[in-house]
C-alpha cells in the first residue's frame, strides 16, 4: 500500500531519483479507460433492465472504482519515485484482471457475501475492493523494498517446515466447510493457508533445485528407458508426491494438490531439462489419481460429475451444467456486462459464481471474445514472469521467478479448464479475479516478488555454497573431481542470456 510507502519519503527525500515509466503509464491509462467503459456498460444495463427481473444486478459504485483506479495510480507513482528499474507490464496486466474482478463483484448481488465490521455492513464489492487494495498495496511495498533474497535463499528448509506446520495446523484446528477443511481462523481473521503454501513451496523448490541442480542433471540410475537422478535426490519428488496426495486425503483439496504437483514438475524440468523426470512424475500422478479415485469418495464424485454432468442436471451436475449454460448464452460476443446471468425467483443461476465460476459469468457477459482477452492477460503475466526468470542473475532467482509465474499460470489453467469441463472441477480460485482475501493477498505477494526480481540493479546474489556434506557423501565419493566440473559452466555472474527487455 502506498500509505505504507509514503511515510518513508521524508527520510529518503534527499536520495529520491524518480525514474519515468512511460510504458507503464500508457498501459495503465488504457486499463483505466477499459474499466470506465465497463462501469458505464454496467450502469446502462441497470437502467434498461426491468426492475422486476433485475434482482441479480446491482449498479456499479463509482466511489469503489475511483478508489481502485486511484490506488493503482498511487502504486504507479510510488514505483516511479522509488527509481527502481522493475518490469512495466506486470502491474498493468494484473491491475486489468483486478479491475475486471471488481466490476464483476460490483455487478453480482451484494448479498452474496455480507460481513459486519464494526459499524459497517460490507457487501461483496466492498470486501473485494478492500482485499484488492491490500493486495496491490502489498505488491507495491514488496516491489520497492525487497532488495536482497537472503531471507528466502538461506532458509529454504525453515520455510518448508513452516509450510508443513501451516498445513498441519489447518488440519488440526481448521474449520470444516462443505466437507473440506481449508480455512484457519485466528480470532476474527480467517484465511486459507494453502494459498500461502504456494509461495513457500516455490521458495523451497527454487532453493533446493538450484543447489542440487548439477547433481540432478547427471544420469545415474536407469530404469528402463527413463533416466533417474541419483536415488537420494528422488526424495523431494517422492515428498512432493506425498504432500499432494496428503492434501487430497486429508483436506479434500484436489485443486491445490494438482497445482502443487504441476508446478513442481514444471520447475523440475526447468531446472534439469530432463523430460524423463516429467514422464516419471506424470506416471506417478496417474497412479496416484487411480488410487485416489478408488479410495476417496470426493474424487470419485468429482470425476463422475465431470464425465457426464448432464446425467444429473438438477443434482450433482447442477453447478457445472449451469456454468456451461452461461458460457453458451454468452456466445461469441456476450450479452454485455450486466445483461447476463438471468435470475429465476431472485436466485443467481450458478451457485458460488463469485469464487468458483467468475469466468462463466464473464464468459456470458463478455462472450468468447472476453474469455480470450482474460486468458491473454494471464499469458502476459506468465510471459513476463518467465522473461524475468530467464534474465535473472543466478539460478535461485531464475527458478524463483519462474515458479512464481507458473503458480499463477497453472492455477488459472486448472480452474479455467475445470470451468469449461475439460478436466474435473476443483475448487481453486481464478487468480486476481475470484472473490477471496487469501488468494488476492498471496497473488499480491507473488506480483511484488516478481517485480522485485525483475530489477537488475539490486544486490548481486551471494556466491554459491558448497554442496552439503550429504551430497558429497552420496553423489561425489567415487568421483570427487566432478562437482567443480559440473558447476563450471554455471558461474553465478552470467549463466543466462541477458534480458534487456526493460523499456
Amino acid at each position, binding site marked *: 500500500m502506498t500509505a505504507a510507502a509514503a511515510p518513508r519519503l521524508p527520510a529518503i527525500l534527499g536520495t529520491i531519483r524518480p525514474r519515468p515509466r512511460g510504458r507503464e503509464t500508457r498501459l495503465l491509462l488504457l486499463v483505466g479507460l477499459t474499466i470506465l467503459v465497463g462501469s458505464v456498460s454496467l450502469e446502462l444495463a441497470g437502467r434498461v433492465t426491468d426492475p422486476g427481473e433485475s434482482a441479480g444486478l446491482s449498479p456499479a459504485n463509482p466511489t469503489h472504482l475511483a478508489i481502485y483506479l486511484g490506488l493503482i495510480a498511487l502504486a504507479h507513482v510510488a514505483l516511479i519515485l522509488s527509481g527502481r528499474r522493475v518490469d512495466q507490464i506486470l502491474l498493468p496486466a494484473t491491475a486489468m484482471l483486478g479491475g475486471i474482478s471488481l466490476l464483476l463483484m460490483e455487478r453480482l448481488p451484494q448479498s452474496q457475501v455480507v460481513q459486519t465490521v464494526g459499524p459497517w455492513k460490507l457487501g461483496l464489492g466492498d470486501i473485494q475492493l478492500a482485499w484488492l487494495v491490500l493486495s496491490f498495496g502489498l505488491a507495491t511495498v514488496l516491489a520497492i523494498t525487497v532488495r536482497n533474497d537472503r531471507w528466502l535463499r538461506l532458509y529454504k528448509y525453515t520455510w518448508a517446515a513452516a509450510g508443513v506446520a501451516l498445513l498441519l495446523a489447518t488440519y488440526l484446528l481448521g474449520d470444516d466447510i462443505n466437507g473440506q477443511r481449508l480455512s484457519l481462523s485466528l480470532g476474527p481473521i480467517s484465511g486459507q493457508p494453502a494459498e500461502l503454501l504456494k509461495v513457500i513451496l516455490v521458495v523451497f523448490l527454487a532453493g533446493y533445485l538450484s543447489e542440487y541442480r548439477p547433481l540432478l542433471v547427471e544420469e545415474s540410475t536407469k530404469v528402463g528407458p527413463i533416466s533417474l537422478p541419483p536415488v537420494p535426490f528422488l526424495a523431494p519428488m517422492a515428498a512432493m508426491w506425498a504432500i499432494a496426495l496428503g492434501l487430497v486425503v486429508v483436506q479434500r483439496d484436489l485443486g491445490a494438490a494438482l497445482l502443487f504437483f504441476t508446478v513442481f514438475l514444471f520447475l523440475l524440468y526447468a531446472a534439469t*531439462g530432463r523430460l524423463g523426470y516429467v514422464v516419471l512424475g506424470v506416471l506417478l500422478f496417474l497412479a496416484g489419481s487411480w488410487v485416489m479415485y478408488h479410495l476417496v469418495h470426493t474424487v470419485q464424485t468429482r470425476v463422475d460429475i465431470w464425465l457426464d454432468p448432464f446425467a444429473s442436471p438438477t443434482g450433482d451436475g447442477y453447478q457445472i451444467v449451469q456454468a456451461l449454460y452461461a458460457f453458451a448464452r454468452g456466445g461469441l460476443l456476450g450479452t454485455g456486462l450486466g445483461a447476463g446471468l438471468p435470475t429465476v425467483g431472485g436466485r443467481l443461476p450458478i451457485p458460488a459464481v463469485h469464487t468458483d465460476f467468475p469466468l462463466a459469468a464473464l464468459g456470458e457477459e463478455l462472450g468468447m471474445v472476453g474469455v*480470450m482477452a482474460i*486468458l491473454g492477460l494471464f499469458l502476459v503475466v506468465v510471459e513476463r514472469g518467465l522473461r524475468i526468470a530467464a534474465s535473472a542473475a543466478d539460478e535461485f532467482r531464475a527458478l524463483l521467478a519462474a515458479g512464481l509465474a507458473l503458480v499463477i499460470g497453472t492455477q488459472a489453467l486448472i480452474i479455467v479448464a475445470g470451468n469449461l469441463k475439460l478436466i474435473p472441477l476443483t475448487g481453486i480460485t481464478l487468480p486476481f479475479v475470484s472473490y477471496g482475501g487469501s488468494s488476492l493477498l498471496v497473488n499480491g505477494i507473488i506480483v511484488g516478488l516478481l517485480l522485485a526480481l525483475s530489477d537488475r540493479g539490486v544486490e548481486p546474489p551471494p556466491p554459491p555454497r558448497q554442496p552439503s556434506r550429504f551430497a558429497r557423501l552420496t553423489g561425489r565419493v567415487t568421483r570427487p573431481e566432478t562437482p567443480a566440473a559440473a558447476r563450471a559452466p554455471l558461474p553465478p555472474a552470467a549463466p543466462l542470456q541477458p534480458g534487456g527487455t526493460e523499456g
Partner: protein
Amino acid sequence: MTGATGTRSKPLGRTIGHVGLALTLAFAGLALGAGYWQVLRSPELTRAPDNPAVIAAARNVVRGPIVDRDGKVLASNRRNPDTGEPYRVYPHRAFSTVIGYASQDFGNAGLERSWNAELTGLSGGDAIGDLLRKFQADPYDPRKLTLGLSTALQRAAVAGLGDDRGAVVMLDPATGEVLALASTPTYDSSAIANPTTSRDAFAAVRDSAAKPLLTRATQGRYVPGSVFKIVTAIAGLGSGRITPSTTFPQQPRAERDGLLVSGFRVREHPGVPAETFDLADATEWSSNIWYALAGLRTGGDNLAAFAGRMGFGSQLAFDLPTVASQVTNGDGNEPGGFTDDVELANASYGQAETVVTPLQMALVAATVANDGALMRPHLVIATAGRDGSRSIAPEQAGVVFSPDDAAALTEAMRRAVESDIGRQFTSGADVPGIAVAGKSGTAELGGTGAPHSWFIGFAPVDQPRVAIAVIVERGGRGGARAAPLAGDLLALYFQTFGR
C-alpha cells in the same frame, strides 16, 4: 546403475522457454474449449428447457399462439390484471394431454415444454441469426405453432372414449402428420396455467389416481393382443419366411387340441374352424394358432428386427416424450432376445412380454397403408415468426417391407373388417361407402378384469389417407368398444375432409 558421463545441463533460459511454450499450448487448449461451448454447442444449450434464460424469458414473454391445422386457436394468452404478467388460456380441454400447460409455478408440460424455446422466441435455431438478434431492440421473437391436429377429430375422439381411460391416434400415413392424439382422462390445463387457480388445479391433477398427466397415446404401455399380429405378418412377409399363401398342415389338429410348443399348449379362441388357413383367412379369423406357427417360422431375430424398423425397442422421435414399445423384454438367449419358443409363439399374437404404445401401433397401421414405408410422425407442421414462416416437411423414417407384401396384407386386413367372418370380430369399424382395412385386438391381462379393447386400421383401402389406432382400457373385446369408435372417427374424417 550406469556410469554418468558428466552431462552438461541445458541453459536455464532454454528450459524455461520450453515450460512457457507448454503452458501456452495448454492455454490454446482452453481457447478451443471456450470455442466448443460458446460457439459450437451454444445454440443447443441456449434452448435447453432448464436453461435459466429460457425459464426467465417464459415468465415475461407473451408466448406464441398454438393453432390447429385449420387455424383454430388451441392456446392463447391473457394478462393477469394485478401483475401484468401474461398467462396461457386453452379453449379445448381435449388437447390438454397434447399441448400440456405453461405455468409460472409448476413449469411446463407437453408441447409447451418441448417447443418452449420457439414459443418464447428465445432462439430461432441458428447461431448467426441469434448473434444478429442481440442488436435488435426486442430480442425475443415468439413463434406461432401450427399443429396437424384437427379440432373436430380430437374432440370427437375424446368424447368417444368418454369416461373410459384410453387413447386414439389418427395420422396421415403418407406424411406422418398427426390428425388426432387423444388420451383420456383429460384435465383442465387452463386452470393450471392461471396463476390464481394453479396451486389447487395442479395438486388435483398430480394426485389423481387416473394419472391424467400421463399422455397415454405416447407413454401408455399396453399389452397389444391380436393387433400385434400385423407386426408378425410384416416380419414374416418382409423376411420372406412366409408368403400370403403360406399354410400349415398341422393347423387343423392344433385348432382342436392346441398347438404344442416345447411342452406349452397354445390355445385358439372359440369358434375358429379346424382348417388350414392362408394369411387372409388367418387375419380374418384372427387365428392365434396360424400366427403362432407363422411367428415360429419367421424367427425371433426377424420379428425383433422388423419391429425395430418401425420403432420398437427405442423411444420414438416425436414432439412429445415417448416410451419404447417392446416385442420381448430381451433377457432371453434365443435370437431376438426371446427366452424360448413358447415366448416367441405367444408374442406372435401379442401376448407374452409384448408391450406397445398406441402411437407405435398407429405407425404399424400407417406402414401397411403407405406401401411399406414409414413416415416420421409429427405434431407441429409449421412455425411462424417475425422472419416469416417455416413448414416442417414430411420425412421418411425408413422402408419396412415391400409394396407387394403391403398390398397382400392390406387385402387381409380389408377382409378382417369387411367380410362376414371378419365382421364378427370388428363390428362397427366399417364406414358406409368407404373400404376400410384393419385388425381388432382383445388383450388378455390375466386375472378376472375385462381385457383391453384394441383396433388398428386405415382407409380408404385403395389410396389410404388416414391410419388409426384405438385402445380402450378394460373395454372388453376389440369389437365391443375400439372397433366401433374407430368406425365413427373414420366416418367423421371423411365427412370433415371429403371422400
